[in-house]
């Protein structure tokens, strides 16, 4: 470097640009000696090229809102995998505005200039930050919203206290347009094996990116304004590599769910992480599970109706059985009282002119009577009547 300056000074010689960039490259090599450094910064201008496994971005250091330092950074294929790992572990999209700690090497290219090659991202730091941010939002909801409270360490919301109708027929669905989650939900609910029919009103919103929270909020409020129209609200998403849950931790979105007069079910497709939105309603993890829940809910009602009908048939059956028993008893009693039964025991019936004689005083000496025994009919003339 000193040698280059000396030549310039002595000979007033115009140098090729490459001599300067080569000198810069040498200086950087000497200073940093290909060391891996750990740096902290906010990421911005993230541009991913998944096919090539490259990602270009900028790292910023801010004081308040003012940018103090800015450096270009890049993931080449060797470090690119750490982005997916980061998104999976943190549940957040690697996108503008995130503060990250990462391992880097300082690189200089004569054409593209100074940059940091990112080799790995410290997910623990981001998870810690996100968790802190989430915790603050939860505390704010408990303290600032009349629809959210904490009971025995659990969040309790107005929405969770809402009773579901016996049958769910009309469902508002908030989902990203043309998403796997929405397709799964519709397929599951419209092709259910019981043949139940539902009235679906789908409101398409973005669920990631800057506009997502505002769109979600607008849709939830539109549903809340017409509570009599819906039995339930399903918020679904999922599928693919979508891992940005930031809108579902947004204070206003979460409070709108907590305050919504229509029971909210979330199936936002993440098995490990629970967003704050999940805690405000009823969390069912995936769109398919939400659809199945509604189908099973209606199946339980149909079962109850069927059980009631069976109870009715059983009551009728018992009643008829009881009446049959009564008839049998009467039949048996009548049988016991039949005159033939009496005759079988050795008694006899006295008839006069075909009529059973019930009053002996009506008979006189020399009257002709018929005496009926078990097997015989005897014609007789009365010789004498004695009172015993």
């Amino acid at each position, binding site marked *: 470097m000193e040698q280059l300056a000396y030549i310039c000074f002595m000979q007033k010689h115009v140098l090729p640009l490459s001599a300067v960039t080569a000198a810069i490259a040498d200086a950087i090599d000497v200073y940093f000696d290909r060391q891996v450094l750990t740096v902290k910064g906010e990421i911005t201008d993230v541009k991913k090229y998944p096919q090539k496994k490259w990602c270009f971005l900028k790292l910023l250091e801010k004081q308040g809102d003012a940018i103090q330092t800015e450096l270009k950074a890049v993931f080449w294929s060797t470090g690119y995998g750490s982005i997916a790992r980061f998104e999976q572990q943190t549940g957040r999209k690697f996108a503008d505005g995130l503060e990250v700690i990462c391992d880097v090497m300082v690189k200089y290219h004569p054409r593209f200039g100074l940059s940091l090659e990112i080799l790995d991202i410290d997910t623990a730091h981001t998870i810690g930050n996100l968790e802190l941010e989430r915790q603050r939002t939860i505390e704010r909801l408990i303290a600032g919203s009349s629809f959210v409270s904490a009971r025995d360490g659990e969040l309790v919301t107005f929405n969770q206290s809402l009773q579901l109708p016996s049958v769910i027929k009309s469902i508002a669905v908030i989902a990203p347009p043309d998403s796997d989650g929405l397709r799964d939900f519709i397929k599951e609910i419209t092709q259910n094996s019981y043949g139940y*029919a539902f009235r679906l009103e789908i409101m398409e919103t973005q669920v990631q990116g800057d506009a997502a929270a505002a769109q979600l909020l607008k849709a939830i409020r539109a549903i809340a304004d017409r509570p009599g129209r819906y039995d339930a609200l399903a918020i679904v998403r999922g599928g693919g590599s979508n891992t940005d849950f930031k809108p579902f931790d947004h204070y206003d979105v979460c409070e709108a769910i907590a305050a919504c007069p229509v029971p909210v079910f979330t199936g936002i497709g993440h098995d490990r992480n629970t967003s704050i939105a999940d805690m405000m309603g009823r969390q069912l993890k995936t769109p398919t599970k939400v659809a199945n829940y509604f189908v099973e809910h209606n199946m339980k009602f*149909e079962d109850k109706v069927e059980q009631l009908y069976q109870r*009715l048939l059983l009551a009728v059956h018992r009643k008829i059985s009881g009446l049959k028993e009564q008839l049998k008893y009467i039949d048996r009693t009548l049988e016991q009282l039949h005159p033939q039964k009496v005759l079988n025991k050795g008694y006899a019936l006295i008839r006069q002119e075909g009529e059973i004689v019930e009053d002996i005083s009506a008979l006189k000496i020399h009257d002709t009577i018929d005496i009926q025994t078990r097997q015989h009919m005897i014609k007789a003339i009365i010789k004498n009547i004695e009172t015993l």
Partner: protein
Amino acid sequence: MTEQFEFDDAYQELLRLVNEIESDNVALKDMARKIAEAKVLVQQCEQQLRTAGDAVERQEEQ
């Protein structure tokens, strides 16, 4: 806008019929009619659960 079938009302009516029959307050001559009423309610529930959404479009609450 069609009138919405009320599942809860149907269920309550069915329950009332069951309780009536179980309590032995139904004369034998009325039994067949009560069973038929219950059967209709069950069939209505089954049918309405499977009726397309448009038919259950509900009155919006003001």
